């Protein structure tokens, strides 16, 4: 099986299958990841409500299975004089908002589903960017060695001395104030082509859904940029060992160019640990993105971290606002980590430990 210049051997596929069958955790992980991906992809079709629609009359509704009591005060005319009356009102959940609503009356389940999009997009694109940057640097450093290697690795050391979160905050915070668009609005094909609309009409869900979706590009760029080092280290290590292999020396003797050697020989043989690292990084970047939006450094408000920050103010009265998006994060990251474990156990690339945030 070939993906671009990289071919996946039948033995690898067999190992993957074998590990999948024998490990219950791997199956759980794959299920979780598939659920999240589907939710993100088909968000306009399956979300109960439009995530942005506010409805202050229905603010702070509890999730299904819970009831909430609120104190309401009214002023009333009683016997000709004005009095304030305080009473405890029971607020019931409704099936229209299975996970309740937040302080603006927005449906939490819908926001969670749409939030999956943000997290996945940032996670995937950020990882791809970090991988491209890091692998290029790492392979170059490992293959050429000498001064090139030294210079690049010193850069990596300095880069590591900046905690990635702090650096990300600094870059986003410092750049964003003077940018008109921190993020890019993308049209949502499912909505604009009417597919989502007809589906929802058929099923009986309210329409319309948002036509555009925000892609937080600055976040993606920054997140990819601060994480290149992990890929660089792995790629460098692989390049260092593969370059000593006989077939590489043979290729050089035959006059193959360096670029060709790296692409055709070094890269395909290094792909396994890079792949395992990539899954770990997707999880790490999702956590990073949620931390960034929690702190207010994100390009979009439709994000799990942002919702948690909002919910914090209502912790004592409506705990579900902050809890639900957090559960979504935990489940997604668990799923990705389990898939990462599956890959690592099946492919056994021999990398130590975990790449961090």
């Amino acid at each position, binding site marked *: 099986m070939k993906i671009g210049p990289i071919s996946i051997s039948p033995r690898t596929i067999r190992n993957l299958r074998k590990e999948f069958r024998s490990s219950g955790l791997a199956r759980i992980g794959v299920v979780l990841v598939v659920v999240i991906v589907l939710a993100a992809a088909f968000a306009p079709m399956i979300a109960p409500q439009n995530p942005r629609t506010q409805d202050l009359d229905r603010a702070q509704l509890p999730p299904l299975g819970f009831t909430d009591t609120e104190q309401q005060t009214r002023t009333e005319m009683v016997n000709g004089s004005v009095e304030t009356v305080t009473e405890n009102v029971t607020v019931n959940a409704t099936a229209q908002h299975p996970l309740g609503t937040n302080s603006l009356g927005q449906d939490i389940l819908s926001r969670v589903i749409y939030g999956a999009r943000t997290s996945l997009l940032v996670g995937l694109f950020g990882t791809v960017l970090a991988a491209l940057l890091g692998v290029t640097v790492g392979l170059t450093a490992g293959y050429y060695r000498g001064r090139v290697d030294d210079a690049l690795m*010193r850069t990596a050391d300095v880069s590591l*001395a900046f905690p990635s*979160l*702090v650096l990300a905050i600094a870059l986003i915070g410092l750049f964003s104030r*003077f940018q008109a668009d921190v993020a890019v609005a993308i049209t949502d094909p499912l909505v604009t082509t009417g597919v989502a609309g007809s589906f929802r009409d058929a099923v009986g869900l309210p329409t319309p859904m948002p036509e555009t979706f925000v892609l937080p590009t600055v976040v993606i760029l920054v997140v990819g940029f601060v994480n290149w080092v992990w890929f660089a280290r792995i790629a460098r290590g692989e390049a260092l060992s593969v370059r000593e292999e006989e077939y590489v020396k043979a290729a050089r003797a035959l006059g193959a160019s360096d670029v060709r050697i790296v692409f055709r020989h070094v890269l395909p043989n290094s792909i396994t640990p890079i792949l395992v690292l990539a899954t770990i990084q997707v999880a790490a970047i999702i*956590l990073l993105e949620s931390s960034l939006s929690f702190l207010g450094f994100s390009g979009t408000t439709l994000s799990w971290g942002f919702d948690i920050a909002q919910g914090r103010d209502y912790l004592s009265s409506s705990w579900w606002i*902050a809890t639900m998006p957090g559960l979504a994060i935990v489940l997604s990251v668990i799923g990705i980590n389990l898939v990462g474990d599956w890959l690592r156990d099946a492919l056994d690339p021999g990398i130590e430990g975990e790449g961090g945030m």
Partner: protein
Amino acid sequence: MGYGRFLLKRGVQGVGVVWGVVTVVFILRFITPGSPIDTVAPLDASQATRQRIAEELGLNQPLYVQYLDYLWELLQGNMGYSYISSIPASVQVFQKLPATLELAVAASVVAIVISIPLGVVSATRRHQPADYAATSFSLLGISTPNFWLGIMLVLVFAVELNVFPTSGRAYGFMQSLAAITGPEPFLTVVTGWLASLFLPAITLGTYFTALITRLVRSGMLDELSEGYVRATRAKGLPETLVRYKHVLRNTLVPVVTVLGLQLGTLIGGAVITEAVFAWPGLGSEIIRAINARDWPILQGSLIVIGIGFVLLNIVVDALYAYLDPRVIAE
């Protein structure tokens, strides 16, 4: 090579890294949009005022001159003055540092004390209930965003159960020391301090507890299949020593390596934890400085963190060399 020379070599490398950090921090100001003048000058300042401020801040000089000035000042310990408060940046930064250090140390202690035995037990009782519990816990621990964990802990312990305070830092380490002889009752001070430190430390420490448990577990499983384990058992050495004196020592080597790389995560986590608990440390300070474009504070904080990071890495390297003497031979 010898232990001392090894450390010296690492120290020299560390200085190089610190210099790199300082340079990057310096350049940062020039590549971001906006100018310090905007921060310092009042909104309605005249052109003349702005010019004057520019002169004061040395912004009109060529780049390399500003750079060299900056380095020179730094070597003397001068990080400039906060654009907002006009307090010397070094004073402000070092004032906030202890709070962050307390948090980081507390979290690390919690993590190490719990995770190492947990990892060893998990590896030696493989596929038994203790192992399943430990692996489930560690999976959860690395998958939970720490700000959310902090909020949930606050929800349960502070809001509902009212056992711990919801936020803030009460007293501190130095104050606790002072209270041994000082006016305030020692017990009140210490319990107040620790109570306010408890939830933040757990929040920050959970990820690392989970991570280290995982690493120790997998490391030990690998290590237990090495040849010397059987040979050491063959000579009759008690199992406790086989595990903790021999196997764990070698297991910790890659664990320590990974931890060294994770120091950045620790600091990042501290920033978030401080935001969640309104813990008055360097992390909150950095966020404030970023939002306000208070460059001296931001730069000073980043440099202090960079230096701290380098120092910690040297300590980690020292530990590494102690555990595995072959490292020195390189």
